[in-house]
């Protein structure tokens, strides 16, 4: 037995050695900060004021405060609307549609394919904060290019972020994240052997039936993973919204990650901000577990 275990270790040694740098980095930059946030959430740690000089354990005080916070329900609701709007409906559905179109275009050898491909990709390769300022430069009420253009046409300026703030940030986040989903699905589509379709076509299946019976089932495993990935990433995002509306007007676009940031770095309440981050992390984790179980059961 022992000899067997040892030889299995010897066999796996290479894998362990290969994995350990990644594991170390993940522990350092993901697990470490998460544990630190958990620790901070039980303290009154602050960046300034009397609590900064005397940080101490406060038990569950921050959690009690959070569940009595009259704004927290709205923040959660905003997050759900933002995730469903921009991650599920926006990035996921649009990304899948774009991938199908581009795959179709490639099979037909359409020339515009690479133009579309790079145009979508361009939105994704920009750093988030630059993408945010790009849209601010367009949407800004006083000096944004859209309102300046409207002015030249003799039309009045539009308060884009004031009229429909949540829709605005959903559109921008969809624009930004669609490329990722598109790339994944494009890769997956190209692994589907084309003889399946030819056989279906010979059997007289319509385009919709070919998609429903063949494409979709073959995409399901990758679709589950992609949906999980974009949902979790969107739930934790805040830089884009910060650049666009900073959560306003009147908390209408304040999502949970932004709320954690504002409490930690505007109210300087690190302990309370960490508490919000821990709750966010727990919600994300719970979602991931439920979702993975569900998608495995279906597969």
């Amino acid at each position, binding site marked *: 037995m022992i000899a067997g275990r040892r030889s299995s270790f010897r066999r796996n040694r290479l894998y362990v050695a290969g994995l350990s740098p990644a594991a170390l980095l993940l522990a350092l930059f993901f697990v470490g900060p998460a544990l630190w946030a958990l620790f901070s959430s039980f303290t009154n740690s602050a960046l*300034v*004021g009397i609590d900064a000089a005397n940080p101490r354990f406060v038990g569950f005080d921050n959690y009690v405060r959070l569940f009595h916070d009259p704004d927290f329900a709205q923040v959660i609701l905003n997050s759900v609307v933002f995730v469903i709007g921009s991650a599920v409906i926006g990035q996921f559905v649009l990304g899948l549609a774009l991938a199908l179109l581009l795959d179709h275009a490639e099979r037909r050898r359409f020339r515009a394919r690479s133009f579309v491909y790079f145009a979508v990709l361009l939105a994704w390769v920009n750093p988030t904060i630059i993408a945010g300022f790009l849209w601010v430069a367009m949407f800004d009420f006083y*000096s944004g290019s859209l309102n300046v253009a409207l002015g030249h046409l003799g039309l009045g300026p539009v308060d884009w972020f004031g009229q429909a703030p949540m829709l605005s940030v959903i559109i921008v986040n969809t624009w930004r994240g669609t490329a990722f989903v598109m790339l994944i699905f494009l890769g997956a589509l190209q692994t589907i052997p084309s003889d399946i379709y030819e056989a279906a076509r010979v059997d007289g299946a319509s385009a919709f039936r070919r998609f429903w019976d063949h494409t979709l089932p073959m995409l399901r495993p990758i679709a589950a993973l992609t949906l999980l990935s974009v949902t979790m990433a969107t739930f934790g995002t805040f830089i884009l919204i910060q650049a666009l509306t900073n959560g306003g007007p009147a908390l*209408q676009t304040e999502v949970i990650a932004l709320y954690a940031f504002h409490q930690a770095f505007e109210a*300087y309440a690190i302990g309370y901000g960490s508490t919000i981050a821990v709750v966010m992390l727990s919600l994300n984790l719970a979602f991931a577990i439920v979702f993975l179980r569900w998608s495995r059961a279906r597969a």
Partner: protein
Amino acid sequence: MNELQLLNQTLSRRRFLQLSAAAALVAACGPASGGSPSSGGAISGTVNVTYPDQAGFKPKYVQQAAAAVHQQFSGVNVNIDLQKIDDDSFYTKLLLRLSSGDVPDVFHVAGTSIGALADAGYIEPLDSYIGAWSDWSQYPDAVKSGVTYQGKVYAIPYGLDMRWLYYRKDDLQKAGLPADWTPANVQGILDAAAAVKAATPNILPYALYAGPAGSSGTADHAFVPLLWAYGGELQDSSGKWIGDSPATRKVMAYYAKAYGSGLSPKTIITATQPWVAMRQKLGNGQLALLFEGGWVYGGWDSANKAGTEQNVGYVLHPTETGGPSFTVGGPGTCWYIAAKSKNKPAAWEFIKAMNSAQIVGSLNAEDPHPVARADAANVPAFASSKYLVDSTAALKSARFTAPTADYQKVILAIQTATARVASGALGADAASQRYTDDLKQQVGADKVTTQ
């Protein structure tokens, strides 16, 4: 906070209020200073100075001060870190540095942060330094108490904050109002704004700051003067922060009128740094009414001196009943020494050089504030400006917010509450009631009361 500390704060605030009138008079006619060159001694090493500046007035004076220190003490090198970012971002960056222990020796932030910074143990009391600095006698008592927290002096101010209700004479005249307009009461501001809106639809009538986008201006340039105008107070006599009250409801109703009838643009709560656009628009006549910092005049004055003198009028903030008008005062942006600085004597030498009568007078003439030290008012560039003389005189009518550690948190509650009513999410009375909850969230339920 124990009762003794509260008592101290209340006393120092009361004293601040009582002596504010004296400040203006002393500042206007104070004697010239002889100055006091320090003796040499063993002062040497590097001094790291960090400060924010977007307007561009301060850098040359900071360099002058650094050169003066180096000339006096050849072993001292001043390392200047100019951050061209807004004050809020600078403050957050600074706090991260201070909490990590990687501290600059000297920094420059709002005097209203004294309580929070001192409580955190980030700043050095300056009493032992000012005891040996004869120039300190040039600072009026009201100014001194403005930078005193729990009996210790923590910062050196260069120019005091005050605010004006600015109006465009040309815009008001088009609306049938006189060029020397003075509102009889608070309602008079909204009436003038409505007249401008009716006469010239393409001109913004009035900018009333609200929400987090307005930064501290939402409190100091809008909510707080309105609260005082309606006879309200931020804190009661025991130091508790007052949430819902008759005055708070009137302030919220004023907000509802200003935003509900389109007198103030909703973009104030959606644009980033809306004050940049609002200041610019008042300067070029596209905005008619704006309650803003006295220093804002400097931007208009340097861009177009003749046009500004001709078209920009300024008056004190009116009250509800037409009682004495007033302005909101404050200690302005101050110079601090970090408690963890490794070179405090040299840091103090820099602060002294930066606050010489000559630099204080010249800097405030460009970046217009009433001078913090009385003798600086004699610097010709300062003394010859009608605007600065008026601003200094207005300090006689100034009211000050208390130098408490919690005020910055209260500003966040004010931002949240005003955004609710300005955006139309809540009506005036409901927003006033929610303001109580907003305050409780920020400072704790035990420090909040209603009236």
